[in-house]
């Protein structure tokens, strides 16, 4: 079967999200002066993780279904 596109998309954005969240947690507050004092890395990282997670969820559910049908 051909690659399910939701898998790489989910994976990529989850990793992006994790990187941003991690980086957002270790950077001091003054790094965010340019983004109006908002720790955008942390918040947007969470959004990316959520998006990636939903995509991964869809992909894994489809895979589980295909396997169930195969048996």
């Amino acid at each position, binding site marked *: 079967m051909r690659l399910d596109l939701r898998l*790489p998309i989910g994976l990529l954005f989850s990793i992006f999200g994790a*990187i941003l969240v991690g*980086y957002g947690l270790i950077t001091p507050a003054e790094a965010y002066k*340019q*983004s109006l004092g908002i720790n955008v890395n942390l918040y947007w990282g969470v959004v990316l993780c959520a*998006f990636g997670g939903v995509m991964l969820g869809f992909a894994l559910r489809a895979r589980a279904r295909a396997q169930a049908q195969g048996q």
Partner: protein
Amino acid sequence: MPSPRTTIRTVGIPARGAICRIYCHVAWPFRSVPIPLTQSIQLGAVDWMILILYFTFVVGIGWSLKRGMKSSNDFFMSGRNIPAWISGLAFLSANLGAQEVMGMAASGAKYGMMTAHFYWVGAVPAMVFVGVFMMPFYYGSKARSVPEYLKLRYDEKTRTFNAFSFAIMTIFSSGISMYAMAKLLNLLLGWNFDVSLWASAAIVLAYIFLGGLTSAIYNEVMQFFLIVLGFLPLVFLGLRDAGGWSGLVARLDIVATQSHNVAGQPYAAGAWVSAWHHMGSPASNPMGVEWFGMAMGLGFVLSFGYWCTDFLVVQRAMVAENEQAARRVPLIAAVPKMLFPFLVILPGMIAIALTAKSGQTGFALPVKGNAYDYDMTIPLMLKHYFPTGLLGLGLTALMASFMSGMAGNVTAFNTVWTYDIYQSHIAPRKSDEHYLWMGRMATVFGTVLSILTAYMAVHFNNIMDMLQLVFAFVNAPLFATFLLGMFWKRTTGHGAFFGLLAGTCAAAMHHGLTIPVGAESLFKGGWLGQVLHLYPSEMAQNFWTAIWSWTTCFTVTIVISLLTKRLKSDEELRGLVYSLTERHDEGHLPWYKRPIYLGALILLAVTALNLAFL
């Protein structure tokens, strides 16, 4: 603060980035070399991580699809089994190059909310039309490309004309894309121009060579999400900085009253925030167009011509898993398309509003000559608002969209080259493996030719301008040929071919006999020596060139068709012409899968948007 009063005098040049996506596929955002940055951006380790991770995934997708590439059908047509949502997002993404993102933001700063016409008038209605009315013929005819449809419907000469002009244009467009990207990276990050150019070409080549059209489509979908998720924080931060929507509107009113038209009169306060209210005459809006020229030129001729006949986008719908899915593809794409103004135009509006109060915020557009350097809006806002980390994501989104612009053109080129030029003129009746091999070779030399074009762009600005004009002339009348072909069975091959030629000549003539205000070279018009009409802006001239060209093609095609003998029988035209094609009963589909309902719903929504920003 430099006065925005001078803006109208330079109307035209940066706007080409916006109009040319529709007009002739070729955006030309960096004509002269602007150096607006005091220093290039320094990337942090985390930015590099994001960038490298993305490109690893891009090539990885190509690699994992390699096993599936067994026949030319897999390579060029993705085996015709791509789900509608994937094709739909790719349909949108193939059109959404970085030049469009940057060009639309530039236009947003320059013209304000009126720029949304490129979406709400200039795209969505045509996308609904192609989905509801035209896809059945494209898909049902089993044509593998748009030129091949012309061959089936008309004759070999019409197809060859279209195939050659399209093939050259795709190479040219992808070369321009590469050039613009390498130039931007050089400017923004201080990267070496040649290295940026060759590296981006190598990545694109790798993933298409391995995975063909499927790989390009998959990457376009990734790029769609990357653009949305990469630029959305920019809108949030910018809007917050501008004092929310009401703060933005108040600032834009100041921008409007401080700018003036060609005659020196200031604009009304709402000119930057309303889409329709100031379109009564060209003098009362910053775009310099009136509603009729806009609705007919952009909304009808240019937009339908692009979305309904351009193989670059149509190819994405042709590979859907079945006819119903193929018809849904443009409709699915239309939904995000109508929301895109908020992602790409709004940042431009925010940028000009912030520039008007730059004393407080620090963000200001740079000045170039006697106007702002609008083209740099997006890169500079990224630099201004995004800290290390998010900056990596934003830049990756920007690069991804440049590269998918190249990839879309390369896949369209290799298909048209292999099927419509190589197979039909050079080497017919070869084995399928041979054509698959040819497709891969075409990908290689298509990329090499694009690189050459990019270097040509560096050295010969004028040749590029001229080529761009010629393509605009060739493209403008195409929609008349398709419309007549699909809905009037009496249209003949001779009628179509000579109608196209006449339309192309009419476009050239109109351009040669008119000029826009402030034209500084013959590439802007008036090259026939005699100037019969002066347009208030280059955009108005473009719209009217298209209207003249379309009308000429339409009329000449009808006249010559009536004078020549019909060579194709009803039987041969089955599946190609509306009146000779049986409609599939779609009654068994749920309403949300039926194109006609979806299309109506989308048109309602886009009408509501127009009313909301009247």
